[in-house]
């Protein structure tokens, strides 16, 4: 009689369980590297002694709740101290956050271009959406497509949102520029059709610096342009890791935490 064991189950599913495709491998490696770097940065930008004391005091107040549980005033005052201590601890962790927040944010934004969405596939329809400055302009906007791309339906106007949407399908892989705008003045938008890992910019914006920095990888639309944004509906990417489909940022979050935890223990760093 064969019994079902977790090991047998693992072996049964092992090919998919342990298989790492390129994006997954990239996330794992990046998580390890960034986990290490961030822990080291945390070490040198934080007050390690103060953090250690703050953490120890938190633990002490937690233990006090347990040790003196029959004494309600002690329990309550310990709980108050835990709240206060948590605030102090977060405040101490705040300074390293200042140092790592900006570079890490920029890094994550760049990674998101590769890992956040997948390139378009041939034969599968996708949407191109343009937002105008007002609804009157919508009637003048046209979509110019290269030969490899083909419209599959008439454009849909959404006047309340000042938007116009086209449904398009790609025939061949490649990077294409579509043109959008009134006939006398069009603006291009890059469209990626591929099965590879590509750097993708889903939107081209007229917006402010930080908005473009965080959302777009393309040059800004001119300020006097009647079009505010052009967006391509790329499918979001999920990454298979240990039998679970992950959004890359969550996987990165979990793995970098694990890596950070290991490195902090090895390097003796207080976090």
């Amino acid at each position, binding site marked *: 009689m064969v019994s079902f064991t977790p090991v047998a189950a693992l072996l049964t599913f092992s090919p998919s369980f342990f298989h790492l495709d390129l994006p997954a491998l990239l996330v794992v490696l990046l998580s390890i590297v960034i986990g290490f770097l961030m822990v080291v*940065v945390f070490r040198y930008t934080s007050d390690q002694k103060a953090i250690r004391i703050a953490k120890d005091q*938190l633990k002490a107040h937690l233990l006090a709740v347990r040790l003196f549980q029959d004494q309600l*005033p002690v*329990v309550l005052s310990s709980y108050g101290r835990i709240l206060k201590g948590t605030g102090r*601890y977060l405040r101490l962790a705040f300074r390293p956050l*200042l140092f790592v927040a900006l570079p890490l944010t920029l890094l994550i934004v760049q990674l998101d271009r590769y890992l956040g969405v997948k390139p378009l596939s041939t034969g599968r329809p996708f949407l191109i959406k343009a937002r105008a400055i007002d609804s009157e302009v919508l009637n003048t906007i046209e979509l110019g497509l290269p030969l490899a791309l083909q419209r599959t339906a008439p454009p849909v106007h959404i006047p309340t949102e000042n938007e116009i949407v086209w449904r398009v399908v790609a025939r061949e892989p490649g990077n294409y520029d579509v043109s959008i705008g009134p006939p006398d003045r069009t603006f291009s938008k890059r469209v990626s059709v591929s099965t590879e890992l590509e750097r993708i910019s889903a939107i081209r914006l007229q917006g402010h610096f930080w908005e473009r920095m965080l959302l777009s990888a393309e040059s800004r639309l001119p300020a006097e342009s009647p079009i505010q944004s052009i967006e391509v509906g790329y499918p979001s990417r999920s990454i298979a890791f240990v039998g679970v489909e992950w959004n890359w940022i969550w996987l990165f979050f979990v793995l970098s935490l694990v890596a950070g935890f290991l490195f902090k223990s090895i390097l003796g760093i207080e*976090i």
Partner: protein
Amino acid sequence: MKNAAGSATKCRHLAVFAVVLGLVLLCPLRSEAYAGPGAGFAVLSSFWTLFVAFLYSAYALLTWPFRHLLRSLRRRKAYGKAQIKRAVILGFDGMDPELAARFIAEGTLPNLAKLQAQGSFRKLRTTFPAISPVAWSTFMTGVNPGKHNIYDFLARDLSSYLPFLSSAEIRAPKRSWKIGKYTIPLGKPVIKGMRRGTPFWHWLGKSGIFCSVIRVPVTFPPEKFPGVLLSGMCVPDLKGSQGTFCLCTTRHTDEKFREGGVRVPIERNGSGLRTYIPGPEDPLSSNSGSELRVHFEIRPDAGKRLALFAVDSEKFTLQVGEYSPWIPVKFQAALGFSARGICRFYLKEVSPEVEVYVTPVNIDPGRPDLPISHPVTYSIYLAKLFGPYATLGLAEDTWALNEEVLDDDAFLVQCYANHDDRERMLFDALEKTRQGLCACVFDTTDRVQHMFWRYLEDDHPAARGVPRAERPKVIEELYSRMDGLIGRVMQQIDEETLLLVVSDHGFKSFARCLNLNAWLHQNGYLALKSGKTESGDWFEDVDWSQTRAYTMGLNGLYMNLKGREREGIVPPGAEAEALKEELRTKLNGLVDPASGRIGITGVFDCDAIYAGPYVDNAPDLIVGYGEGFRASWDSVMGKVTNQIFEDNLKAWSGDHCVDPRLVPGVLFSNRKIAEEKPGIVDVAPTILKLFGLPLPAHFDGTPLTVSTEPAG
């Protein structure tokens, strides 16, 4: 201008940071919501802490009415008949009533004077003998030593005449597994407490009265009871000894310390120096005596009179004459076995030689390898709250001062550092124990008086070279400091709190050593092997077949009784009684020929002074030394010399192991006490009575008559 510009730049930078951070934190995009594992840990662990705290608190709050009801049903309301809400007992080991009275009269102890005026000040009868483990055991159990089984620091093994620690026994795990060169212990070390009797806080705890007990001697191993307790005197160091310091030195010498310390050579290692701290025995090694070690490096800078230390991952710099904080050390054995401890380093010298003193390696209170508190988490709680602290029973390294490894100042710094830690623990316990018992014993009083009595006397042999004007007022300052502590405690307590200041014994000078084994030898009671005129430690050259009496430890005198000792020759019964009487008669009133003073003022028959199930373990006689005398250093260690009397030249210059009638302790109270001659044995029944509990029938003490009215 420059400052203004600087602050403007600073403001601008701050503004940029604030804007960036604001954008990052306020932007509701998934990719910006995470700022690395550091922040992730901070946020996660904060939430985790709050969550756990909430669970704990909710549990405590929700279950409190039920637990309260259950306690009420089971114990019929804990404080129902109590005359007090709280009892605070401050134990000052060795505080002497005569010195206290003198300093009160001189006006240097205002708080004790206030206690005396508003409440009571009495001499407190101590135990026979007047030794801390004996007296504190009686304090906590309310019984005589015949019922608690502690007669000295040491007891003797009847089969080998060798000593062992009287309070606790630590043995290797019962089972082990031998693989090749390794012996793997299966289980934890077996720790057996030897003190019998039930501490009075157990009775209180069982009745629902909460107790915080800190560093009362002979509470190792800690016993379970409904309260918290941190063990005191008799907690071993990591080597299992009562304190073994280490002197790392580049000086080459074959000399060994008499006891309490080891000398370790420092060796050159490239441009630096390398040495080690000796640790416990390797638990995996089949060969006894193979110790674990922690190596460390020293980089001395003679010009700057400092040295850089690297101990495991810890790096620190010390100036000459400076102590390090507590440094964690890990003694690594094979197969992942390890022992963790803490110690402090003291840089003695960097030129021409390098010398570093290392305290005994204390059990790490934050990660105790042996239980040193009840519950185990209590020592961890204190370590997390206040940082690492001394856990060794005899934490103040008197041996190092005795051996002149530490000087007076370095010893005092160490003492008061420990004392400050203890104060913090006391005030935390006072805050946490708003009802119930809070008892804390301070050892500083004992250790400092032992080591600095020499400056209190005009002609102490250990201070003859020090002009009177240059003698520091260490003991005066000690009492003043304790008085300050009492004052701060008095501010923390209300009218419903009883405050007792208690000491286990007083103090007297220890100027002359009396080697009782030498006297026994010279008077025909103790025989040496043929050709020997002296004996080494622990009766090395004693001929037991012709020995009728011997002494070891501080006050005990034993007959070599047939059927009891392995090579006993004195038949029990009439002959033994006659020998006892003979010894009593001859020793009582023994005169020191050099000074003409009486060296022994009383010899007490243990059959007369003790009663209880453990009397058989007691010495046969207790020797009460006269004022200024004590058992010699050699005699204590079972050594027989030619000299009966000699000067005590050690820094350890005051003592209490004398005739107990000469060294009563103190009892201060914030309430009036009717009895004129209370005893330390009366404290336990008094506290139980004040909390309205019935007294156990086996108690030897009687409750004192304490005024129910708060001090006016």
